[in-house]
Every structure is written in C-alpha cells, then in structure tokens.
C-alpha cells in the first residue's frame, strides 16, 4: 500500500506532527514531553462560556 492509499489521518501521522493547541493549556506539556512541536493559543469562549452574557455582548457589538 502506498502513502496515497492510506486514509488521510494516517498520512498525517506518518510525517512529523506539529500541533496548534487552542484553549486548555494542560495538553501542551504532554505533547511537548513526546517531542512534538506545539504552538499554544490562549483562547477562552466569550464571557467565559456564559451563553446569556455572550449573547448580550454580541448585541452590544462585540
């Protein structure tokens, strides 16, 4: 079976993996401990995940 015949996710893992981690920072250390390059994006859902506040903010132009 050639690389082209493998499912896409297997092709991805056959090469050097580089990760963009969004949100919870806890995953970053584990990946780095495995020698994987990780770029962490410090992101939280709007208003800390409070849907009512997030909806209000959206109406106020955020």
């Amino acid at each position, binding site marked *: 079976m050639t690389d082209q015949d493998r499912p896409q996710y297997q092709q991805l893992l056959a090469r050097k993996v580089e990760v963009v981690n969004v949100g919870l920072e806890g995953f970053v250390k584990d990946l780095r401990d495995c020698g994987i390059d990780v770029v962490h994006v410090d992101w*939280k859902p*709007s*208003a*800390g995940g409070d849907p009512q*506040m*997030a909806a*209000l*903010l959206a*109406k*106020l*132009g*955020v």
Partner: protein
Amino acid sequence: MKLIEDANRQALTRILEGEPRLIDIVPARELIPGLRERMILHAGPPISWDRMCGPMRGAVAGAVVFEGWAQDLPTASRLAASGEIEFHPNHHFGAVGPMTGMTTMSMPLFVVENARFSNRAYCAINEGLGKVMRFGGNDASVLKRLAWLRDVFGPTLGKAIRAAGGIDLKSIVARGLSMGDELHQRNLACSSVFLREIAPWMARTSTDNAVLAECLAFIGQNDQFFLNIAMAMGKVITDPANGIRGSTIVTTMCRNGTDFGIRVSGLGEQWFTAPVEMPEGLYFAGYSEKDANPDMGDSAIVETIGLGGFAMAAAPAVAGFVGAGAPSEAGNFTRSMGEITVAQNPEWTIAAMDFAGVPTGIDIRLVVDSGVVPVINTGIAHREPGIGQVGAGVVKAPLACFQQAIVAIAEDLGVS
C-alpha cells in the same frame, strides 16, 4: 453597535485631548464647597463606618483628631462609630486620594486643571514612606507631619507653582515613562523631573532658606511624591469622558479596602462594586500575606488612563518589586491590557514596546468578553490600623463589576 462605537470614540478623544496642568495647592475647604466640619472624604466607592477595614478606620480616627473634632484616637473612633462623622467618596467631590484617601477641610490639596475642558481635580500631598495616614497611620508623628504639610510645605510649594504659571504634566509623564516609571509603584523619575522644574521657583519665592531646604529635601527623599499629582491628573483627564450615553469606556476604578468600584462613561455616576481582592506581591521583612489588608485607594485612576499596571513594560524593575515575575515579563502585562483597551496613547509611549503608546480606554465589553481584567500595581497595607505599608503587589479588578456594568448599559440602551 454604532451608538456605542461613536460614544466610545468621543470618550477616548476626550481622554486623549486632556491638557492637565498642576496650577496650585489650596486648602480643601476652599476648593470643595460641600466639605464641612465632621465630614471626611475617603478612597473608593461609598462605604459606612461599620464596613470599613482596619487601616481605613485608623486613618479616619487620625483625621478626626487632626481636624480637632476629638481630643484623642479612642474618642475619635467612638465619634465615627456613633454616626457623628459624615463619609463620602473623594470621587463625588472632584478629588482622589491614595490608599485610605483621607481628605478633610484643612488638608492642602494639589489642584490640577484640564485646560482643554476647563475642569479641575484635587489630591492631597503624598506624605512619604513609613508611618503615614494613607496606610492607616494615626500616631503623633503622622499628625505632626500632616500639620507641617498644611502650615509650611503646602503654602511654600503652592507659591512656587503659582509663580511658575503652573507645571505641564503630560510632558513629565512622557519623560518618566522613558526613564523607568509606570506612575503607580515607581514615580522616581517623574518626582525627580518635577523637582528639577519646581526647585528654581521654590528658591525664587521662598523667604526662608531653612524652610526651603526642608521642603526641597521632603520632595527629594520621597520617590513616590509625584504619585498624588499623577492621580489628580488621572481624575482631571477622565472626568470629561464621563456621562457620554452609550459609552462602555471605564472612567473610574478605585477601592476602599472592602469593595472595588468602577464607573462607566455611559452610566454616569452609578457605581458597580464587588468585594476587593487581596494583592499578590512581595512583603517587607517580618511581614507576610497574613498581615495584609485587601486592596484600597483611588490610585487605580492611573491605570484608568493607561499607566501603572497597564504601563508595566516601561518599568521592568517594578515587575520584580511587586512580585509580578521577571523584568523580561513586564511587557506581557502591557500587551495583555492592550486586549481590553480601545487605543494607545500616542503621547505616552514605551521604548521597550517599540514606542507603542500605553493601552488606553478600558472597554467593559472587552473585559467581560475576554475575561481579562485590569491589573493594578499597588502598595499593601497592614490589616491593623496604625502600622502602615507592609509590601507591594499586583491586584486584579473583580470581573463582577464589569459584568454588572454590561447588564446595566444593555438595560439603558434597551438591549436584552
């Protein structure tokens, strides 16, 4: 929302266009018409005696004795507890005060005028370090220094300021930022530049060399002397930005040792309060967090205009002093505050940030959306009255104040 964006643009313009100038030192009773006998102005949002923290009560007792409303401290405390003393926030009278923020009728106040909008703001004179009323100190040495400020220093410096035709403050701040000040926990550069500007005028107007030397030494020995001037400057800059309907820009942040309070331009004089947090920082030898009082003071007005914790990148030495990490991390504070502000101030730049302006115009929408709250550089007072400063640190504004304000402005604008 166009109404909000237009209102915020107007509020920001008013903040940036301010032309603050120190023009005088005058006894509080002559500046604040409503300030009368047995009335004390304090830092932070409104608070009654029964909810005041230890240092605030200590300062109140000292102020009562200082004004001659009681003969001694125990009598003064009883008088305050009995309801005989009237308490109001400095902010309701165009004033600000550091830490406990005591303002009473005979205290001399800096007068800062905003030439662009013809408004004025006031702040008492910084007492120096050690045992001082702003940290709750109230013994004889504290009251003696206050009397000297009232009878000697205030009139001497006031005469010099008037003779100089006032002192432009924006340029001093700009220079201070380039010399390592962030204007809250480090005012060494601004105090020195101020002394350099005012010293010749003090020499010209003083008739007593001994008094002159004493006054010059008082300024020269106090690295935080300029803080109180910067606070009055913050107040005079933000006041014209208050009361613009729809604006979500913060115009006041302050604390009284019990509550943290904010006011927002579009909501005028309305306070939004939440329990104040404990600063995280470093303690002087012999003290620890067990001794600390929750944060207090009107001094967060400097953060409200983009200085203090917002300008941490200008003062890497302060990051270490307040326990905020390595000096190389100071820029992170300023970058983080950039996420909750709508602009940078082009007149106040930070060399270490490639001359980016200090982050200015805190938008409550950005605070609540991101969860990033304003950081404030602060001194830490002992929780017991009369002891004074025990450390310095960083405190975060409570998110709840900003959430309440979002709900209120949505109601005001008919948004649900």
